[in-house]
């Protein structure tokens, strides 16, 4: 089975994340990047599927040079090879454009199963799996907390607002995973060494057949009008319970008219 995992490099959520003054794009230079944490669950799921059904796991990322760090991590966890879509024309692309670009590469490299994280910690759009399914005309089995594959039949439990749904489809398909699904492995020393020798294909827009007039900040379907740093939250009142902590909390709720 040809499994492709889409992995995104994101700024560390613990670092101070900022937009750039000039073009309001994400400042990726000033903070450490790392792999979007739900994508580690996606890689783990892909590896488990490969281990159970044989096949090959390819990591796909679109992003600047730095994003190759995330590729390394995925390869050291056990993925077999990687494709890095990198092109200055892609800078500042929004989700509509990113889905177009990724779909083009996926059409190029072929797939039986595409595995994504349910959402990224920076953009938090949570819609990439749906958009790829729409673009590639394949079934969407997203927000999965459990995946079962039997031949070409695939079944997932889809997390819903009020419980979960059981969903069935035929491969090829795209899935996205939530963190309940597994426990991502740590790269072993051997894995880290092996990753250095694994094939990494670098693709440009031209290589993937991506029309550059449809991607990048200047052509984006959405724009940032303005942005401001939120004024630091007014430091709250923190009291130590001296036997009256509950009373004090009640008083606060009264002043705020909640009781």
């Amino acid at each position, binding site marked *: 089975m040809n499994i492709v995992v889409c992995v995104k490099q994101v700024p560390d959520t613990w670092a101070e*994340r900022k937009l750039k003054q000039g073009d309001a794009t994400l400042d990726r230079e000033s903070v450490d990047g790392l792999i979007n944490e739900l994508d580690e669950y996606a890689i783990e799921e892909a590896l488990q599927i490969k281990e159970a059904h044989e096949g090959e796991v390819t990591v796909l990322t679109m992003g600047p040079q730095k994003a190759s760090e995330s590729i390394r991590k995925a390869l050291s966890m056990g993925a077999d090879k990687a494709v890095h879509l990198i092109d200055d024309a892609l800078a500042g692309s929004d*989700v509509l454009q990113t889905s177009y670009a990724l779909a083009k590469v996926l059409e190029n490299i072929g797939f039986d199963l595409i595995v994504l994280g349910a959402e990224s910690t920076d953009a938090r759009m949570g819609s990439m799996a749906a958009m790829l399914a729409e673009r590639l005309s394949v079934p969407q089995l997203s927000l999965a907390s459990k995946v079962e594959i039997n031949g070409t039949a695939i079944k997932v439990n*889809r997390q819903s607002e009020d419980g979960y749904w059981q969903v069935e489809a035929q491969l090829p*398909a795209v899935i996205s995973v939530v963190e*309940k699904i597994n426990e991502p492995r740590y790269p072993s020393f051997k894995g880290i060494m092996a990753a250095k020798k694994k094939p990494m294909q670098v693709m440009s827009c031209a290589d993937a057949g991506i029309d550059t007039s449809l991607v990048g900040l200047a052509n984006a379907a*959405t724009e940032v009008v*303005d942005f401001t740093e939120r004024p630091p939250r007014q430091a709250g009142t923190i009291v130590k*319970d001296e036997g009256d902590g*509950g009373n004090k909390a009640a008083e606060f709720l009264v002043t705020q008219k909640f009781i």
Partner: protein
Amino acid sequence: MAEVLVLAEHSGGDVKKVTGELLTLARQFGEPAAVWVGDGAEEGQPRLAEYGAGTVYVAVGADFTDYVTGPEADVLAALVQEKAPAAVLMASTGQNKEVAGRLAVKTNSGMLCDAVGLTATGGKIVAEQSVFGGATIVHSAVRTGTPIITVRPNSVAAEAAPAAAGLQNVDVTVSEAAKGARVTEKIVQETGERPELAEAAIVVSGGRGVGSADGFEIIEKLADSLGAAVGASRAVTDAGWYPHKFQVGQTGTTVSPQLYMAIGISGAIQHRAGMQTSKTIVAVNKDPEAPIFELADFGVVGDLFQVVPQLMEDIRKRSGS
């Protein structure tokens, strides 16, 4: 005046509160019209009329409800084509963000997610978003196609503005591509009588600090004394002390209530991602260093099993029951 399409949120004919909020927001930009996918439109009609839907477009039948997000997108895309609405608004749920994504691809339109406010500025619909865990406020707009925007519940107070809400069936054939992933069963976990998590004005959440499934009962009691919804951290849902549907956070529900109470929750970044835009935050935790206190408007450093019963006693006295 162009219409503004609002995807109605409903279950069993009950219209969710957020739909009234979206219809209220929609009025700024055009004539609100609701889109109802699934059964129960007749039961929901009075509520939609109360909040100003001129028309209710109805798509009913198994074809629309037995597949994952494709049919909803097909229905909305057909309406976008036919009615050229000023915008399409939906509540920000995991499911709707996906419907929005498919619709954006189908109509080659820009989409914005998780808006906490919408205004008409310079002829554009401008969405306010709170990003990077609330550290930055962004105003953004759609440049291409029909603005497709998902809005968090509680972003605005719903205001009544009676309209006709005439039901109109939409004639859409669901595409084969949309029927790729078939839903064989929908498993609903009990909510009981409490308000729904995403929509509640007050949310009381418990964390690992409650110590056990039985310990979690104190959270339910506090919630009930305030008429609140119950939430939980991942530590609690992972341990099986409470069902997953109550998880607040990055991979659970995002809430934005008037009051959020975090009881025995440390305030990990993934938890904060789901509650940071709450208007008022109260925390109880025995560890003075717990990161949740950085966010709290009011915090008590203490044992929740001491603090919460005392708090409930005071609430009981005040409400005179």
